[in-house]
């Protein structure tokens, strides 16, 4: 049986030769690759700029808000998200194949990647630290209700939780339930209510928060 060649000996772990301080480790690798003519520092700046400024949860929130106000859009999003997302120009790396899963009073969806940290980058941006943590990766599949409690979320016992462990190149986006009391809101106002965590399934968009928000808005106007 063939064996994996990365294993066993120190010589096969060249990373151990890098400086121990992470910032210096990056700098050393960047210097080597730039000097060898393999990496353009301006391309690195462009990549960082793209992930810091171009993509983020506002893109996913826009899809959710539109699905709340437009039944045909909602149907298409749930049936064939890829075609819709491509037509809107929101495809890309780590979001080539997307499935949108709908929360209902009966079923709550929650997304994890136990083997690494797969996440729908073009729709939500770079995953937060907690999503990549050992605690979330190890526990979300075994005790989702305990994990949700750490986010302040408590679900009725008769709501079934479905945890999606992203083991392939399919990226999952949760379509949260539209909260009560938002009938008169515009798509833009609704998008502002949609949190990143609600699209991962570790947050709810509650009427209580919205009521507080409306009162605050009224008080300020």
């Amino acid at each position, binding site marked *: 049986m063939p064996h994996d060649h990365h294993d066993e000996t120190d010589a096969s772990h060249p990373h151990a030769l890098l400086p121990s301080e992470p910032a210096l480790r990056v700098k050393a690798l960047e210097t*080597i690759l730039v000097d060898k003519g393999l990496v353009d520092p301006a391309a690195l700046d462009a990549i960082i700029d793209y992930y810091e400024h171009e993509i983020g949860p506002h893109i996913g929130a826009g899809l959710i808000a539109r699905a709340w106000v437009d039944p045909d859009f909602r149907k298409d999003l749930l049936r064939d998200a890829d075609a819709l997302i491509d037509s809107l120009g929101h495809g890309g*790396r780590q979001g080539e194949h997307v499935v949108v899963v709908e929360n209902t009073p009966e079923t709550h969806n929650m997304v994890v990647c*136990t083997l690494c940290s797969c996440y729908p980058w073009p729709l939500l941006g770079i995953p937060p630290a907690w999503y990549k943590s050992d605690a979330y990766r190890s526990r979300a599949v075994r005790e989702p209700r305990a994990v949700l409690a750490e986010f302040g979320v408590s679900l009725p016992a008769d709501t079934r939780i479905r945890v999606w462990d992203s083991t392939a190149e399919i990226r999952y986006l949760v379509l949260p339930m539209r909260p009560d009391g938002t009938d008169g809101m515009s798509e833009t106002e609704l998008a502002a209510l949609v949190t990143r965590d609600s699209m991962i399934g570790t947050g709810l968009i509650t009427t209580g928060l919205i009521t507080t928000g409306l009162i605050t808005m009224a008080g300020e106007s």
Partner: protein
Amino acid sequence: MTRIHDMGGRYGDGAVKPDAPEEPVFPQEWHGRALALTLAAGALGRWNIDASRHVRECLPPADYARFGYYEKWLGGLANILVAQGIVSADEIAAGRALGPADDSLRNRRLAAEKVVPVLRSGGPSSRPVDTAPRFAIGARVTTHPIAGNQAISGGHTRLPAYAAGKTGTVVLHHGGHVLPDSNAHFGGEAPEHLYSVSFAAGDLWQHAESPADEVCLDLWDSYLTPA
């Protein structure tokens, strides 16, 4: 059998700590640099996403456990650059280049103006498969009894240990997708039908928190047999 990354269901990791509102995208400046360097090196085309995952999984368990997310990326990047003969171990130790790369590789350098188009187009893993899917939605299937690469000892697989040898129900069919177990080892894309399979929590865990809750995993045809 399994490697350190396969941690689903593990005990002892403590509480999840949600982030503060307005947490920066890259909490440390070097995080963004590490991500960008990894993507730019990947654009040289010498490896694929499955190989890059596998090289991170092959970090020594003690390193994997103590490294943060981007440190794992850096460790994996250094190792795969050397394994592919792009950078030498001497260069890593010296912290500088000891010679230029081949022209054929230099010609593949990612230009700054190509960054956005490349990131926006991505790299789909869907592929045509000649055969009809073996399983219909609703079919009961059992996963391979051992969560290991079926051809290569210690090789890459996407069947987590907690779901090995378990029986569940097919809930989605995604069409054909590149098989990571082959592609990670440069054995070809070997596409297979990919399914989402739902398992009852009560069938996965000795002490299920709520037995009727479910965990769904995306699993390739060769991971499954009819139940």
